[in-house]
């Protein structure tokens, strides 16, 4: 609980040990990222070039947006397993509506609203019926994937000019270029960071994650915050779907299988405690960059196969969970 309060104040309070400071795990992640990048730069020529770094953002824009939403859910002490399939479903709905001749802006608005409503529905079930977030969002995951296949079991190509333009536009950015998707992802991240630290909603999220009972007794609107968090996660999943549709120019029910796990991994690696109430929304960026760097390293190596990514991510998850665990034991003792 103590740590939750401290997170709100930033590093305002002096703690006897550095390792139990709230920013310590985030620092570990940043160091890890630097080590990974350094190792890549030493091993492969051109690894540290500006565009390779920017490609990390371009290729993982959808994951970053989803991880931001997941970060909020986890900070509030929940979990959302439905994000990957909501992403797939929104690509599917978007492709379907676009092919039916709808206006692309209207389509984007519809899928974003759909994602938020889907999330809010899950949040309402979780809050009002005290169901486990894990099981509700699991059912949501089945539901969204199933709905994808009801629309079509085939991949639907997107030929809408706006979507094609979004996938091909290059926005100049420090010495290289980024895609509109990456720009959108960064804007979402910035807004989310601001909201987590400067708004009542953000503080409410930390309070609920720290201790829901106390938050309720303090008179916080737990229902609105909790449902809001899941609605935001659903919105982010849908936005991730739009960005993914920009990237792939297709809607497909099997898009982004297992993305929910990548997002959870990114949030954990970014230093957020899975028990809630502790961590930074900004951690999502470092987590996603670590995952992206691992993938880039494997791509540069050329001899390693993609399943090494999974093994390394598993290893990192293990490392971070154990570190978090040991730190929390120590801070309880001190």
């Amino acid at each position, binding site marked *: 609980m103590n740590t939750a309060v401290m997170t709100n104040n930033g590093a305002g309070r002096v703690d006897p040990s550095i390792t139990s400071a709230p920013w310590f795990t985030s620092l570990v992640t940043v160091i890890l990222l630097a080590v990974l990048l350094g190792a890549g730069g030493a091993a492969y020529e051109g690894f540290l070039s500006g565009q390779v770094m920017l490609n990390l953002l371009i290729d993982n824009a959808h994951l970053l947006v989803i991880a931001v939403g997941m970060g909020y859910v986890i900070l509030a002490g929940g*979990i959302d397993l439905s994000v990957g399939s909501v992403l797939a479903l929104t690509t599917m709905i978007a492709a379907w509506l676009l092919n039916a001749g709808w206006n692309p802006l209207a389509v984007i608005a519809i899928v974003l609203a759909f994602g938020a409503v889907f999330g809010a529905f899950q949040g309402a*079930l979780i809050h*009002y*019926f*005290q*169901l*486990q977030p*894990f*099981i*509700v969002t*699991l*059912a*949501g*995951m*089945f*539901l969204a*994937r*199933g*709905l994808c*296949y*009801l629309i079509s*079991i085939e991949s639907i190509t997107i030929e809408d000019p706006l979507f094609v333009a979004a996938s091909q536009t290059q926005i100049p950015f420090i010495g290289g270029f980024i895609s509109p998707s990456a720009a959108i992802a960064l804007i979402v991240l910035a807004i989310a960071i601001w909201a987590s630290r400067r708004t009542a909603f953000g503080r409410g999220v930390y309070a609920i994650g720290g201790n829901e009972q106390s938050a309720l007794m303090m008179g916080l609107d737990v229902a609105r915050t909790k449902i809001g968090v899941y609605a935001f996660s659903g919105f982010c999943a849908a936005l991730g779907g739009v960005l993914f549709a920009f990237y792939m120019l297709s809607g497909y029910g099997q898009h982004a299988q297992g993305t929910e*796990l990548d997002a*959870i*991994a990114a949030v*954990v690696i970014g230093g957020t405690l*899975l*028990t809630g109430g502790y961590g930074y929304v900004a951690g999502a960026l470092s987590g996603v960059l670590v995952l992206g760097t691992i993938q880039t390293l494997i791509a540069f190596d050329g001899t390693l*196969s993609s*399943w*090494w*990514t*999974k*093994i390394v*991510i*598993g*290893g990192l*998850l*293990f490392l971070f*969970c*154990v570190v978090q*665990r040991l730190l929390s034991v120590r801070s309880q003792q001190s």
Partner: protein
Amino acid sequence: MAPPAPAATVAKARPEKASLLSHSLAKPILALAALLVLDIVFIPGFLSLEIKDGHLYGPLIDILNRAAPLMLAALGMTLVIATRGIDISVGAVVALSGTVAAMLIGGTMVINNGQPEYVANTPMPVALAAALGIAILCGAWNGVLVAGLKLQPIVATLILMVAGRGLAQLFTDGQIVTVYYEPFFFLGSGYLLGLPFSLWVVAAVLLVVGLLLKKTALGLFIQSVGINPVAARLAGIRTATLIFFTYVFCSLCAGMAGLMISSNIKSADANNAGMLLELDAILAVTLGGTSLAGGKFSLVGSMIGALIIQTLTWTIYSLGVPPEVNMVVKAIVVFIVCLSQSTGFQKLWKGRK
């Protein structure tokens, strides 16, 4: 199944009446019965059974046979959930054990006296032991993380869920390993005394665990850990050891399920074998009336839950409904079951009446 005395907290939410309908297995059995009636009405020859070469064949046997791996996984999952845990690495363990068995057995063709004969690379008992050994190791890993390091079960098993399948793909280079060795196929598609061999395996495991839980204090211990881990520890139960072994048992069950699946499809597919099986197992356990909050559990209920899922899948396929609907139906079933378990919803329901 479970002794009723410590279930006082549960009983408050669901008042025990001395009627058949309030029995904890009543709902799952009714659900299964309803599905079966639907099948009997709409699918001609659903109840037909015939004997070919001394083996029973028919839709019912087919459903039972296909449900076997899920039933095994659900058995292990029941005990884990009973201790307030969850194991989402089941699918990865299925992939790992199937892969190890398939790779060790392999099978090469040897021409013996002009007759082609398939020979295993490694003796089958060794291969099976190695596959189950890997599964036990996975369970021990999960168990150490949950019981030793006290990580949240979902996070602890998430690690193996992500990495386990990667390991299996690493072993096989991402290829599907095909097995050419007759005796191995017996596990998944063989018959013993007229019934599928896989059913005998499930029955044996169920019997052993059931007896162990009923005849020893183990069942009571698991239940008390699920209801209140702190109180259980203070009462002198070695909670950590107990929790550790439920994860080992769960992985072992998953390992056996993996052997069955790879034997049935005569190959091991590290990419897809056991995909989402953990979710089906959790669903089966919930359908069977086991509370996800721990404490109250029923092995028989989980078996019925697994049968409901398999019958549902089978029905959807047989009715000619596109198989894509399967996931939507499953999701709706989960929502309904969860709601029916929630006290908030029960209050709302009773308030309306």
